[in-house]
């Protein structure tokens, strides 16, 4: 026992730290290879494109990281993206931008509350709970929109679309928003008492409870944050495509979970770093962008992302050993 502790104490932390930076190393290598393979990769247009693609996913993944650290799981975020985008668009047509945006985000927050309460109060497994709400909310989206995109004509306020187009400091608002959200969520997760409570709840629920932490409330809060951010992502997407799409967000939940895994967070909870999840997002986005530029068929892109995911999970097992 003493030997093992000493072994861990002398050499392991620095080595482990290095292994823990594998996602960053992988991303940098990926960027280098991509820019060597295609001259277009580092062009201003493509960089903006990559950042735009990463923006929506980053916002969703930040919420997912919270839920996973709290020991949970959220499969419903993709459906929330669709529902919130449609609700925002429908509301906006009648009442204007601000009520529309708030309605979209509110729908996300509400679905987070729903998930949180089912998981904590009814004690249903998070996988089953959010699988159910994923299907349920997709159904609701189809019902409220009649399975058609809203609105069909360009009746959305023009300024709504500006959000995705207008630039500050050379980049669209759409790219700056995730940066802002990340800054706030990073501080909340890694520098506050709330953050410690969240990690403790996911790391050892019983111990957290005996330390006086309201574990159910903490868990619910993570689902609410995740749902709210999925709502924000839905509104962002609606702004970008200038409509509410009832079929939007399909598979986003799995991509977000993949990004969290690529970032090295533990799926059983209590472990993870927010910035690493974001690195995970960009590994996926840059990889598919680079393969696009190299004219690799999208089916092969899926194969590639699957392989990267397995490699990342295997490397993580190695690190924990």
């Amino acid at each position, binding site marked *: 026992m*003493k030997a093992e502790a000493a072994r861990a104490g002398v050499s392991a932390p620095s080595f482990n730290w290095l292994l823990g930076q594998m996602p960053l190393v992988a991303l940098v290598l990926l960027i280098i290879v991509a820019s060597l393979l295609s001259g277009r990769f580092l062009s201003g247009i493509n960089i903006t494109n990559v950042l735009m693609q990463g923006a929506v996913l980053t916002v969703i993944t930040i919420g997912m990281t919270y839920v996973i650290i709290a020991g949970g799981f959220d499969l419903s975020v993709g459906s929330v993206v669709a529902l919130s985008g449609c609700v925002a668009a429908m509301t906006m047509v009648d009442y204007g931008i601000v009520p529309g945006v708030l309605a979209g985000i509110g729908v996300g927050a509400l679905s987070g509350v729903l998930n949180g309460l089912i998981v904590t109060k009814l004690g249903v497994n998070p996988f089953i709970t959010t699988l159910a709400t994923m299907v349920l909310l997709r159904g609701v989206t189809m019902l409220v929109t009649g399975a058609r995109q809203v609105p069909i004509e360009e009746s959305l306020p023009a300024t709504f679309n500006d959000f995705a187009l207008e630039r500050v400091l050379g980049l669209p608002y759409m790219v700056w928003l995730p940066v802002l959200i990340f800054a706030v969520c990073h501080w909340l997760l890694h520098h506050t008492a709330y953050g410690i409570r969240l990690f403790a709840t996911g790391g050892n629920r019983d*111990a957290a409870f005996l330390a006086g932490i309201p574990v159910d409330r903490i868990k619910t809060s993570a689902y609410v944050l995740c749902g709210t951010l999925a709502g924000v992502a839905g509104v962002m997407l609606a702004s970008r495509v200038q409509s509410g799409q009832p079929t939007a967000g399909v598979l986003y939940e799995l991509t977000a979970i993949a990004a969290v895994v690529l970032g090295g967070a533990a799926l059983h909870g209590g472990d993870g770093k927010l910035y690493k999840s974001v690195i995970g997002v960009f590994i996926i986005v840059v990889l598919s962008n680079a393969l696009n530029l190299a004219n690799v068929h999208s089916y092969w892109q899926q194969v590639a992302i699957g392989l990267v995911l397995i490699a990342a999970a295997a490397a993580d097992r190695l690190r924990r050993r």
Partner: protein
Amino acid sequence: MSVEPVIEARGVAKRFTGTQALDDVAFAVAPGEVHALVGENGAGKSTLIKLLGGVYAPDSGEIRVGGAPRRFRDPAEALAAGIVVIPQEIRVVPALTVAENVLLGRLPTRRALGVLPAADRRAMRAQAAELLGRLNLELDPRERVERLGHAERQLVMIARALAHRAQVLILDEPTASLEAREVERLFAVARGLKAKGVGIVFVSHRLDEVIAIADRCTVLRDGRVVEVLPRTALEVERIIQLMTGRDLAELRHPHDRVPGELLMEFEHAAAAPALRTSSVREREVVGLAGLLGSGTTELLQNLFGAGATRASYVLKGERIEIASPADAIERRIGLVPGERSAALVPGLTVRENIVLPNLHRLAGTWRLDTGKVDKLVRTLMDDLDIRPRDPGRPLRELSGGNQQKVVFARWIAGEAAVLLLDEPTHGIDIGAKAHIHRLMRAFAAKGGAIMLSSSEVNEVMAISDRVLAMRQGRLVARLDRGADYTEGTLRKALGG
């Protein structure tokens, strides 16, 4: 020795980065011998077991089985050679039956319809029943293991060892979670195996048990064999002295506290009329004695607001309601639960584990005063001698004794007035145990009140001012310091 040992380590050494875990260790078990292996945590017991069981290979020296040198590449090879390790954590498959668990790895098969390979359930039950019978165990082979308690699961593992034709049985802390009657049954099984010529290695912190069962006892300290004691020389004080390298007198303390003001008063639903109300005073340690399942754990959990129902009792003259641990913590009541795994978050750092229940005092709603936290944590780590002295170290990298000190540190950080301690020295070595005892005395001396539950009668008697005895959820006796304050009286009350 005239007979070849069933297993022998000759001059083995094992080094891990930075530490010599074992250094020139000789250890031999004769057929039909119970050989105890004792030492403080970190003395090298686990490493030696892992060498014998094929988990590690020695850096130098050799392992001999039945007189022939062997080099195991993995535990499976050791198992095939008849060396079976029963770890502290019992590994059985709860959803399978007793028979399936006993024969796991060598399940009898038959040909269904003459061709299809199928498990032969009848043969399985018969073989399992035969093995269980050899151990004099009355377990139904068809029972699912999830319905068995810890003690029975352990016996299922031993029956499995028989199925593997064990020549050497290594029991790692087998009695840590057993109550007195179950320990007796385990010892009966061990004696039966001994009579059949099996060599048994018995690793334990409980020295009275070592003395009861062992034929010889090897004492390890800092990776070396200090002494091999024959049965006739087995004596608790002598063993402790060899293990710690210190005199027992240094570890003993006189009892000289004078209890102060009444702090806490609570009622028992299940108790004789004269025992209905119990109280704890400042500077007082009230012991709670009881065997596993006697209700002492439930009583402490309930007082802490972690029980099935909300608690109501008198604290500092005021009747209070405790609905959750948060309420108890607010009233400066702390709980050290029986299982360390229920108290600590292994992935968080030592610092975070210490501040966890005190966050509401150390942080605003959102902002954490890291400067204040750091100063507090460093002071506590010095005071309690938590090693290594690194607040940023993940908790899982600390030894059991140091982890337990972290649980204490968090309540001292929270300036607790009452500490509820459930088996606080369970599974930690004698040095760390003495340290925890000192902490308890210091806490009480400063005006704190302690309720201490322990299944070790001598421990609870030595530290407490008063002892409450519980049996099957009922409070059955109260012993105040005086003429009747003896282990005999308490054991009689516990019915053990």
